[in-house]
């Protein structure tokens, strides 16, 4: 492979998965992602998952470690000991989202423990943000737990939720105690689809508030682990309509990787800055 072109890597270490992106920066055309990976941690040793993810992504791109000029971490990136720089999660998600979909003016990043809403400008600068606090009510982990109780896999959650006919409200807000509600619903014979939709709607209710709080308008891209969950996107549209929030909820097949992509892209930017500096001082 031609390695004259700048190559950077972004590694997004989450609490449930490690995401890796390898990006190529041709001198006279926009950057392009040449490898994207998600590796779920599942109680494995984190450092190992990171190394494997990186190695697998390089393999996919047909590159070796030395071809990568700048490795940028994001998320809980302290364990990426081969990184050159670190960017914080919102910085990278904003960059990744605008890269994937240039019309995006707000980002909703839903991770395992937190959800964040960001308002961004066309250059992906974060103008305002809101995050959920230290209560996991409505988090990705919550959804994961519910799925476990319902005996469905995470990939099934979205499609099922979209089949709901009569969504059920979940009464308690606590992510843990709500499980009891879920179990009760199951025993009352309520369909899995309706339960999941109810959960999605209650999560979406929280997210709409976050989006409102940052003043989101126009295209909103969902990123993070739940980005691929159409059920959540649907519920978010419903809630946003109900609240008359003027947004268009968008999804993108690669938006799970927004953080990793953003890191790789910012890595490219820093690399240029640093090389320029080096040249100047030389």
């Amino acid at each position, binding site marked *: 492979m031609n390695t004259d072109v700048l190559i950077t890597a972004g590694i997004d270490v989450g609490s449930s998965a490690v995401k890796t992106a390898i990006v190529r920066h041709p001198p006279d055309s926009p950057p392009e992602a040449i490898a994207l990976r998600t590796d779920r941690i599942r109680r494995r040793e984190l450092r190992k998952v990171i190394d494997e993810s990186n190695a697998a992504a390089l393999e996919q791109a047909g590159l070796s470690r030395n071809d990568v000029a700048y490795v940028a971490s994001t998320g809980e990136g302290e364990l990426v000991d081969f990184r050159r720089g670190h960017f914080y999660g919102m*910085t990278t998600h904003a960059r990744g989202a605008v890269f994937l979909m240039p019309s995006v003016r707000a980002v909703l990043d839903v991770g395992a423990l937190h959800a964040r809403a960001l308002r961004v400008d066309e250059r992906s600068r*974060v103008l305002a943000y809101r995050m959920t*606090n*230290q209560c996991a009510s409505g988090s990705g982990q919550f959804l994961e737990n519910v799925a476990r109780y319902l005996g469905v896999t995470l990939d099934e959650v979205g499609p099922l939720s979209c089949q709901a006919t009569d969504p059920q409200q979940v009464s308690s807000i606590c992510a843990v105690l709500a499980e009891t509600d879920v179990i009760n619903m199951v025993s009352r014979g309520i369909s899995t689809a309706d339960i999941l939709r109810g959960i999605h709607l209650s999560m979406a209710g929280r997210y709409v508030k976050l989006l409102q709080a940052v003043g989101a308008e126009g295209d909103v891209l969902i990123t993070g682990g739940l980005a691929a969950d159409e059920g959540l996107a649907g519920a978010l549209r419903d809630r946003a309509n109900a609240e008359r929030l003027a947004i268009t909820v968008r999804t993108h097949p690669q938006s799970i990787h927004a953080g990793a992509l953003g890191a790789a892209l910012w890595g490219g930017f820093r690399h240029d800055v640093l090389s320029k500096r080096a040249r100047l001082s030389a």
Partner: protein
Amino acid sequence: MTPSLAAIVARAEALAQDVSLDSVRAWKAAGRQRRAIGHMPIAIPRELIHAAGMLPVGIGGGGDRLEIIRGDAYFQSYICHIPRSTIELALSGRLDALDGMLFPSICDVIRNLSGMWRLLFPDRYVRYVDVPQNFDPQVGGRFWRQELDILRADLADLAGRAINDGALRASVAVYNEQRGALRDLYEARAREPWRFPAAELYQVIRAGNLLSAEEHSRFVREYLREAPLDPDRRDQDRSRVVVVGMFCEQPPVGLLMTLERAGCWIVDDDLLLGLRWLTRDVPLEGDPLDNLAQACLTSHVRTASMYEPEGRRGSWLVESVRRLNADGVIFCAPSFCDPALLDQPMLVAALDAAGIPHTQFKYSEDTGQFAVIREQAGTFSDSIRLWSQA
């Protein structure tokens, strides 16, 4: 770190963790009939206590190590943390070294806490010190002077000796000295923040809650001399920020470290205002109590608890950001702190108008999880760094 700096830092750390007031007990034991008066964070004329030969002791909550067992008995979950740790300290006997307690008017929480103190400890001296919100010398000034007269008489009673003008004037001089040292420290830090890590600086100043003013002035001067000698402290590519909102419940030091690790240099803050209440020296000529009263009206620190008759809440913040050449403002307030949180929208509006970036988050003195704060502060400093070069 030079050995002498390490010693200063270690002492400051030890004092910051001295929630049982061992140092106050030691001070009392070192002389006959020594008494100590506790007070909550702001606006207390410590000079008056000093002039009565007593030790003013700043009570700034219980920090992040104190387990709250009985303090929660008195406060609902939606009330900030400082009153519960303060009550915990008192109920567990840790504040027994204090011979009295003063509650300045910071907010309704502290105000009501003064009443709780009366009910819980009926035989201890308690006073609510009502700071005027009217700054006309003939109106608010007169009232404040009358409040101080009462306080002077009470303190004299407790001390068993009158507080004469001479003693008071001498105390004012001692505190002018301390004010000077603290001002110098803040100025030095604003110039070269990397020489004075925020957590360290905070603890050095916090020592003033427990040490006598004379000793604390020396301590601060020593630190001011030693810290810049550390060769390992160097400037880094970070954003300069002003932090606002921490005037009452103090943040855990981990939070200050987190802000720095996330790429910020703190160039100004409103920590420990009780020790830095007056921004200028108090004149020594004339009636010392009048001077003190007057200083409180005209040169108190601007903070959420004090009324702004001109409605210029935001502009002083903008001015200080500009003066200190800061890149942005971090609003960092205790959860459920009404004064700080209600202040924010006004300050935000002014910053927005001036085009100054800002971000905000909440803490409690016993917050142990900094991941979210790191993320937010990091994104903030990222955006300042990346976009200033872009």
